């Protein structure tokens, strides 16, 4: 038995770390008296797992959690109850009860697409249309990644960028790969844009917003709460 829920972490809580968010949910679930299941062993904790960590400094609008249950509870009830026990800035948007979790992939294994929005500044704001076009026209985008105790490595992130488009209010949206099959960090996109136009100013993690995490299905990206995802195990 499982509850899978979509949640948002607002801008005002962007400095809270992944582990702290996890802990905040655990305490919220306890306050709400929801029937979460505990791990076995010396240090029983609620069996809760979250989607890929949001970097400290970034807000997100389409994050996910899985909570194991000891008895059934419906999604709407879970959402309403938990929301009144969470601090302002953390909010359950949608929830689904999953009676049988056999064969269900974990969120982090399942979710492989992330959408980021960036509030563009300076030259990036001015030349956003052209720059996006140029970026997507490239065959290769090499970034350098530091690795712990190993030499730096070059990495081509072009195949991991699937979509880039200009939104209203100076915002740009990128859909990139996330998770174990390849991961693009938002700062790397800015670096890549800087190779096209050196005057693009540095944008840090706080200029981004992760609007959602998705599962890729053919040429579509869909929510992990959809029947299609839940049925395919």
């Amino acid at each position, binding site marked *: 038995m499982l509850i899978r829920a979509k949640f948002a972490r607002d801008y005002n809580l962007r400095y809270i770390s992944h582990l702290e968010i996890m802990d905040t949910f655990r305490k*919220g679930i306890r306050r709400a008296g929801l029937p979460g299941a505990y791990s076995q062993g*010396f240090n*029983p904790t609620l069996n809760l797992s979250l989607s890929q960590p949001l970097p400290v400094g970034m807000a997100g609008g389409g994050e996910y959690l899985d909570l194991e249950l000891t008895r059934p509870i419906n999604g709407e009830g879970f959402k309403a109850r938990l929301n009144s026990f969470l601090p302002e800035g953390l909010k359950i948007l949608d929830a689904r009860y999953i009676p049988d979790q056999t064969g269900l992939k974990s969120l982090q294994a399942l979710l492989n697409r992330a959408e980021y929005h960036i509030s563009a500044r300076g030259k990036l704001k001015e030349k956003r249309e052209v720059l996006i076009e140029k970026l997507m026209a490239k065959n290769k985008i090499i970034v350098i990644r530091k690795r712990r105790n190993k030499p730096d490595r070059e990495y081509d992130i072009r195949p991991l960028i699937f979509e880039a488009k200009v939104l209203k209010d100076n915002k740009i949206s990128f859909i990139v790969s996330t998770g174990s099959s390849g991961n693009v960090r938002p700062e790397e996109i800015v670096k890549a844009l800087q190779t096209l136009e050196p005057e693009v100013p540095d944008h840090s993690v706080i200029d981004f917003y992760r609007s959602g995490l998705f599962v890729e299905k053919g040429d579509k990206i869909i929510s992990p709460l959809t029947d299609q995802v839940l049925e395919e195990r």
Partner: protein
Amino acid sequence: MAEVFSQIDDYLIEVDSPERYIGQEWNQIVKDWDSTDFKICVGFPDTYEIGMSHLGLKIIYHMLNEENEFLCERVFAPWTDMEDLLKEKDIGLFSLENKRELMDFDLLGFTLQYEMSYTTILNMLDLGKIPVYSSERGKEDPFVMAGGSTVFNPEPITPFIDFFYIGEAEENLLNVVKSLKKWQEQNLNRDDILFKLAQLSGVYVPSLYETQFDGQEFSGIRPLKDSIKPEIKRQRVNNLNNAYCPTDYIVPYMEIVHNRAVIEVSRGCQRGCRFCAAGMTYRPTRERSVEKIIELADKTLASTGYDELALASLSTVDHTKIKELLDQLTERYNSSNISISLPSLRVDEFSVEMAKNVQEIRRSGLTFAPEAGTDKLRERINKGIKEEDLYKSVKAAFSYGWHRIKLYFMLGLPGETEEDLLGIANMAKNVLDIGQEIRRNTDRRMKKVEVQVNVTTFIPKPFTPFQWVKMASMEEIRDKINFLQKNLRKKGINFDWNDPEVSRLEGLVARGDRRMSEVIYHVWQQGSRLEGWNEHIYPERWFEALDKYNIEIESIIGEKSPDQPLPWDHLIAGVNKEFLKEEYRKSFLSEETPDCRWNYCSDCGVCYKPYSELCLESNQVIDNVN
């Protein structure tokens, strides 16, 4: 959200642990700034994770916020990176709730917990855009008050604090703050308000008193006017069951020092250890009833979501109904995955058994504090435990499955000899032997036995029977540490000590008179703050300043005669001076004074109310005393 915060918000990504500065935790109380008349900010002169672990601050925060006419917000010391950022952006240190600079409040109150935090108070005032010296504050500035466990010698920080509240907040603090608000609304000037405050019970307005010296020696303190009371009495709660106690504690995001629900099961301790300031200044012992504790625990756990409950007190297992309490709590919370912890244990088998009953899960180490190495020295300090008691306790602990034992001792106690140091080494070795033997003979899997020995320098503190004792020199302490190091070299024993230089500074501030304020100011001017953190303490600055202001160290922490005036003589902590003198005298003879709850009253002076009015769970105790 206040403007100051929007100027700084984006830059918080560059500082360590930005969660320290954002507030917005569950149960935080944010009231409307403009529609609240009187604004209070409570400050803790250390970082968020230390300050948020402090129970007294939480009580005051919620107690003041219960009143519609006030708002009460929090502020903690910023870490150095945040301090730099505030200065760079020219933003004053701000509160966590409405994000207002400290200068915008009507009243700023500091919690005094340890002597080395005083430079941080100065720094917070300065960062909050408030003049550091009281004498420089004007109509627009907040009143600055302080209280807490080191308030029993406020003299070293008197020039920076407008008034002190002496004693327990629940008793009279609300009345003090309400009076202050009323006088401010009547538009009285600052001096008149301070004069009026000085009339209230438990309030000490230092600018209305003057100190006298005879050369280097302190010779007295007296009020400047006849209408000012010569003595200030500690405020205390008589019945803990009726005292205000919040249950909707703020739940921090970040991992703080004590991240759990805390219930104060009793307050005070009457065992009468002669070195212990808390044991003297929080007398008498007052207990919460089992029903009340359970009620508070239920509410606190429900409103916070914590899965750990700590039963706090100076000596938790001394609660007269501890067994019944723990039985009820474990039964109640067993199924909800809540663990219970006992932060302070006595050195006896009973304590170990209590700990075993609750700490079934998360069993790591157990800590005992024999304090001194031989029975004789323990008799002298009235720590009434025998070497045998320790061995019985650790035997029990090892057989229940603990494998790590921590032992706390003090160095430099009055009358300490080499025999006492050898005693420490022997106790450690014997504890190790006991553990290893149990490990050899058990059929359970038991981890390697570890004994951790920690020593600190004994600091003779105000309002203890040792307040007249000369503090041991750094050289003496260093020699003792070296001696112990040599004698504790053994696999399985770990030896650790606190820097004796820092202890010396603590001693100087703990017993200091008003002259110390110049030293504190000077040290702060040199850039010192956050001195509870090893990386931020520069003892040489203190010694330079003592030199500069021509203060002889011996005039503060040297030996005093019991007939000499002391800088804290104008405060009444509860225990009277005659009792302290008697205890001091008895210490030379290694004569013990038993806990008055189970024995005769030793006439310490604390029970100015009939003892029977103070709430203890067991009636038998009251019979004994009467």
